[in-house]
């Protein structure tokens, strides 16, 4: 469960999140809004990448301000650009990187890495140089590298923006089948059509919150 309590946050003189309070318990939550509406900053609050100037964010009762490390182990984050998330030279090594601090044995690590790669269909690329993957495969690798750590919540900030239609469908299909709570920030309104709840942001404010049809309708009316 993610609780956002009266959060306001800004850079310099400008507030990008203004007095937002919301509790997210649904398995699938979408966040939509125009560029610069504050939705990505809002998503970054959930795993402590952004600590709010005012207010508080709690994940399963843990504060992002005081329990940041525990929160990050609970909340995985997938960014838009997969190239900026891949740390190691080969596919399997990058997935294994997330497990380094767990001090698992080599066999346990290998087993977990292979299982995670198999779940996204990348097992045949295990020893492949990561930089030679296609854009879609790189995003799947980024997703896999987060999922291998078994977070309870997965936040994805526009993970399909740089992908073609086939890879977009593949990523969304994987997200749909995950047991984790998924929070998806997106411009692709169709991708949240079957979600449990959709939040709409405009100029830092939460202006609509409800079932996808109503929230998307509000957003369409907002942008004219």
């Amino acid at each position, binding site marked *: 469960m993610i609780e956002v309590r009266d959060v306001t946050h800004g850079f310099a003189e400008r507030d990008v999140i203004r007095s937002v309070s919301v509790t997210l318990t649904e398995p699938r939550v979408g966040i939509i809004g125009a560029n610069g509406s504050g939705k990505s900053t809002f998503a970054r609050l959930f795993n402590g990448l952004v600590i709010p100037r005012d207010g508080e964010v709690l994940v399963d009762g843990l504060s992002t301000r005081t329990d940041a*490390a525990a929160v990050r182990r609970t909340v995985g984050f997938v960014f838009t650009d997969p190239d900026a*998330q891949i*740390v190691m030279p080969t596919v399997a090594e990058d997935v294994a990187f997330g497990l380094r601090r767990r001090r698992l044995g080599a066999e346990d690590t290998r087993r977990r890495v292979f299982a995670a790669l198999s779940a996204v269909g990348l097992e045949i690329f295990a020893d492949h140089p990561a930089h030679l993957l296609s854009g879609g495969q790189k995003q799947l690798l980024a997703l896999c590298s987060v999922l291998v750590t078994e977070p309870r919540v997965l936040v994805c900030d526009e993970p399909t923006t740089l992908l073609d239609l086939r890879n977009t469908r593949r990523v969304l299909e994987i997200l749909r089948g995950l047991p984790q709570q998924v929070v998806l920030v997106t411009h692709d309104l169709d991708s949240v059509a079957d979600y449990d709840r959709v939040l709409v942001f405009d100029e830092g404010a939460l202006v609509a919150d409800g079932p996808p049809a109503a929230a998307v309708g509000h957003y369409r009316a907002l942008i004219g």
Partner: protein
Amino acid sequence: MNTFVPGRSWLHLLPASAKLAGLTAAMVAVLLVDSPAGIAAAGGVTVLLYVSAGLAYALPAQVRPLRWLVVGLVALQALTAGWTAAVTVTGRLVVAVVLAGLITLTTRVVDLLDVFERVLRPLRRVGVDSERVALVLALAIRAVPVVAGLAVEVRDAQRARGPRGSVRAYAVPLVVRTLRHADALGEALVARGLDDPPPVRGR
């Protein structure tokens, strides 16, 4: 840039620590060679090592990037110290680089990092974070293809806007994009818990 090539050869199976120790010893031995005949012998042994690892096909790719350096170095050494020194000094460099390449072709980066981390661990007492040093090495290796990719994109964008280019018009966007990438990478590392203490119990 070398990346690991999977295999079952004796070099693949050898522990990373043994390979690094062997490489260090080989480097010292190569530095002590002071004749063209000795360099030829060292080169022969290096070729045999590649063959025994099933990586003979990868040898030309190790030497090719050095070709202009070799030409320049041989010319400079021949002019200043004679042909014997030119062959010996250049040969040492080529053998050393190709031997180091063999290590990266037969060893996973994570295994190399584990060795670096173990070797640097005693330095923790004087404040050196061995895990972080190992990570910096991994990021440096990973940065090569990323920055090369950015350079190609900037060059293509420059060409698309016209045939005439300038060093400044090429360097500024490349530096800006590289810094942006570094920023995004830093954020991703934080999100993956790089700065966090290890959990008390593994899940």
